């Protein structure tokens, strides 16, 4: 199109009353910095660990909320339009990444105010073994395998997520950077201590074979180099024959004496395992807010469970 032609198009097209508006938000034009300095940032998170980290780091500068109602699992939660509207108006949205909260993929979240806290280690996600993948045609596009989501169970990865949260908060509220740094350092010290605790606990028992009943333990296993084999077993339902067969087969193959569970298994599964000399280790992934305590106390409790379990090991 010639320049004159374009000029005419623009002349004809460009008419409209003033009303395009200017950038919204604060004096510096950033929508995310639109609040007065003494208002707390409204921060939405997709799971409890992020909530804990954000509160530890943000302190009084943040009002951390979750779109997940009480009693609902954040792993399977999907927001309705009201919840999405609340998310869209948040100052910050903290995602876990690693495909936790699949609903994010189909939801319209504000680009600039949404942060993937695990983006810095996205090349180190754990792919779940034996997950179903599909492709369109033999050479066509394919889906990737499922990704393990519980990144926060590895204290070193949790630390990276905490760092990302600190940076996101500081970007939104630069004048509180010092407070965020202080909160982060405090949390980092606790996470590092937690990491050392787990290292110490498992140092002498690296080779103890374990069955993991879900991919929730993938990051832990990788971090502390556990001898873990994953056999997906749903603790909420009693084992059927096929499930029992797969489980006992794996137990036998790897001479396993312990099965890692995210919660106590329903029905007689535990009893059946006991009867063949296999015990259960309930290690809470702390995905949702605990009835009592917090992330650290839950992880401490998990550590104590491991201590008790490995105390019997040679």
């Amino acid at each position: 199109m010639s320049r004159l032609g374009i000029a005419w198009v623009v002349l004809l097209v460009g008419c409209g009353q003033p009303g395009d508006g200017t950038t919204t938000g604060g004096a510096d034009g950033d929508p995310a910095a639109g609040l007065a300095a003494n208002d707390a940032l409204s921060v939405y998170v997709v799971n409890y660990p992020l909530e804990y980290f954000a509160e530890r780091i943000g302190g009084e500068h943040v009002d951390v909320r979750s779109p997940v109602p009480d009693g609902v699992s954040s792993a399977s939660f999907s927001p309705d339009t009201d919840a999405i509207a609340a998310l869209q108006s948040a100052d910050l949205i903290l995602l876990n990444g690693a495909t936790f909260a699949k609903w994010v993929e189909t939801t319209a979240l504000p680009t600039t105010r949404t942060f993937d806290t695990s983006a810095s280690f996205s090349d180190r996600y754990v792919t779940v073994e034996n997950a179903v993948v599909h492709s369109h045609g033999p050479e066509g596009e394919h889906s990737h395998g499922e990704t393990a989501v519980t990144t926060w169970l590895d204290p070193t990865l949790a630390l990276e997520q905490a760092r990302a949260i600190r940076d996101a908060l500081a970007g939104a509220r630069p004048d509180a950077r010092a407070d965020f740094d202080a909160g982060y350092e405090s949390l980092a010290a606790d996470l590092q201590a937690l990491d050392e605790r787990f290292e110490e606990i498992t140092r002498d028992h690296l080779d103890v074979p374990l069955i993991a009943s879900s991919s929730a333990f993938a990051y832990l296993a990788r971090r502390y180099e556990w001898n873990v084999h994953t056999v997906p077993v749903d603790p909420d339902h009693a084992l059927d024959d096929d499930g029992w067969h797969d489980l006992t087969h794996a137990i036998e193959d790897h001479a396993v004496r312990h099965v890692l569970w995210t919660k106590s298994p329903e029905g007689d599964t535990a009893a059946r395992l006991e009867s063949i000399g296999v015990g259960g280790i309930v290690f809470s992934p702390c995905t949702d807010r605990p009835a009592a305590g917090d992330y650290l106390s839950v992880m401490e409790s998990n550590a104590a469970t491991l201590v008790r379990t490995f105390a019997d090991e040679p």
Partner: protein
Amino acid sequence: MKQTLYLAWRYLAFHRVKTMILLLSITLILFLPVGLRVLVNQSSLQLTERAEATPLVFGSKGSPLELSLNTLYFRSDFPEPMGHEEQERILETGLAPVVPMYVRYHSQGHPIVGTSIEYFEHRALAVGAGRLFAKLGECVLGARVARSLGAEVGDAIISSPENLFDLAGEYPLKMVIVGILDHADSPDDDAIFADIKTTWIIEGIGHGHQDVSEQDATSAVLSREDNRIVANASIVQFNEITDENVGAFHFHGDISHFPLTAVIAFPPDQKASALLQGRYQSDESIQVARPSEVMGELLDTILTIESFIVAGAVLVGLATLASAALVFSLSLRLRRREIETLFKIGGSRASVISLMLSEMVVVLVSGVVLAGVLTVLTSQYGAVLVRALVRM
């Protein structure tokens, strides 16, 4: 004077065709340059405002004008897309918040603008009915689109295929209207807005289909080996996103390569803007356009065109005035007998002369007044008129 004006009025009314032609000619030659100047000034103002409200536009290397027109006015051929990774790159600088744009598809002639909800915040667009889009497959209409389609919240629209023969590529997606914007008197009134991921669904990068791992999907399965399933072409793909099937929608490929036509950046200050532009100064694949500059150059061209038109209009105006003067003088000649009669029966010189001149004066004054009214109307409604002409 009153009597003379009465007689002049009767004369003009009797010769109404001649009077109307003269009146319209004079009105036009007076209005044309003035009205054009008003229109151009308005257009310039609005172009400038929209451009200044869009500080920086990032896009693939190419014509800054084409990039700006596509991003600001949703017109023109869409520019060569760039990857979504470019948005992340800009965000990582921490220098400016950004809004992604994918303006490529249309529905019933109206552009579908794939973007994020921050677009509405930066453009200060208010929702008149319903709400902003929250999920894939939802869309929000500009006020004028809703009016022209007779659409309401809850209705649906379907994207138009770019290429009727590309059956394996993008295909029509049915989108539900969840909101209608308030009238904004800007190109936003004429657009359909959806989340950028929705436009990627239209593109065919993402899709939703029946779960191939389910038992009743066997007819759609080409092969199954361990945990790897290969679907065949008969697999049913959803062309509408509902609450029931939204979980089935997914994207194939790496999001960093998913297409954007532009990224609008809103640096908070001059320093951030300069730093951001500086980082891309020698980038080989990405250009940074400043719409205020691009439109400024265009406005210079428009003003040049306008000058030529005004000059032409002035020349035509002079010719028209000369013609009008000729008509008046011929009219006087034709009325010579009438003038003689009026003098004979005792008409005063002043009355007779003013009667003859009144014809000219009334037409001229009416022309000036009418031109003035048209100019005022143009300043009030000119933009609306031009938009209507453009849409015709």
